């Protein structure tokens, strides 16, 4: 499944692109379709392509030498990932990109986008917008890891996931994710996440399923995340 010019224009980095530029980008790219669990790229691979997710969901994860994984972020349709190679020559991917479900992405040659950026300032500015938003997010996560207790970190990770993929329903908010994702996003273990979620369920803040959660008391979760008094 390909991507239309209209869809591509919704990608933050391409929001100011002309139709001609969008056509060139499409012409210099290929569509890659992967099944759940397969990788678009692995940490350490040469960053020859950057990707725009067309459909599905992709997890960006980093692994340390002892094999421990950290989930950096989840990518949703029309979001860009793996763009390092377009900015820095001979770069390697700093993380792996794994399909969380059957997914398709537009793979654009990094060298081609780099070349376009030299004559189109809007591309550099829009890429900077994306990068600065990632830096801000990482700074917040670093602060959380350094200063906040685990329950607060899990609440914040849950709220970040809610902002990205939550669905408002009659009595609260629904969202789908795995406990492992939540553990990786909040820098803790699966065991701790399960213990905290069970505790929140007892308090009536959430109802937790296997790979989904229903937030029955959103304000209660905000209260924990922000350390507000009851």
């Amino acid at each position, binding site marked *: 499944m390909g991507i239309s010019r209209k869809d591509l224009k919704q990608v933050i980095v391409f929001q100011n692109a002309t139709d001609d530029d969008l056509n060139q980008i499409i012409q210099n790219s290929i569509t890659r379709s992967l099944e759940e669990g397969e990788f678009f790229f692995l940490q350490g691979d040469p960053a020859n392509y950057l990707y725009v997710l067309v459909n599905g969901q992709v997890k960006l994860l980093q692994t340390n030498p002892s094999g421990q994984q950290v989930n950096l972020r989840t990518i949703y349709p029309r979001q860009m990932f793996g763009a390092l190679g377009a900015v820095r020559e001979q770069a390697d991917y700093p993380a792996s990109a794994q399909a969380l479900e059957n997914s398709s992405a537009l793979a654009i040659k990094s060298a081609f986008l780099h070349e376009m950026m030299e004559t189109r300032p809007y591309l550099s500015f829009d890429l900077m917008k994306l990068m600065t938003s990632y830096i801000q997010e990482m700074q917040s996560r670093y602060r959380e890891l350094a200063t906040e207790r685990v329950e607060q970190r899990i609440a914040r990770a849950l709220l970040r996931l*809610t*902002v990205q993929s*939550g669905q408002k329903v009659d009595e609260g908010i629904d969202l789908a994710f795995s406990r492992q994702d939540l553990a990786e996003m909040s820098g803790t273990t699966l065991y701790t996440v399960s213990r905290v979620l069970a505790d929140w369920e007892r308090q009536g803040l959430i109802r937790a399923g296997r790979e989904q959660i229903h937030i029955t008391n959103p*304000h209660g979760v*905000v209260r924990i*995340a922000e350390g507000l008094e009851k």
Partner: protein
Amino acid sequence: MSTPLLSPHFTVAETLRQEKETSRVFIAHKTACVGCYLAHFCTLEDVAKTYGFPLEDFLSGLQSEAQTNYFTGVQNEKQV
């Protein structure tokens, strides 16, 4: 010229986007809504229910802040 009307079904984010001065009312009611992750999810009705204050009073507070700001804005525009 009519003043924008705030509905109980507006989300916090929509309200603040439409009339950013209403942030004063959220703060005066001691809510944590300004800057909250869930501003796109919670409606004004949800806020009143969560914090336990009358929806009508809350809405009229927001409306009056929006109105004050709206007319001040119109006046400023005329002066310019």
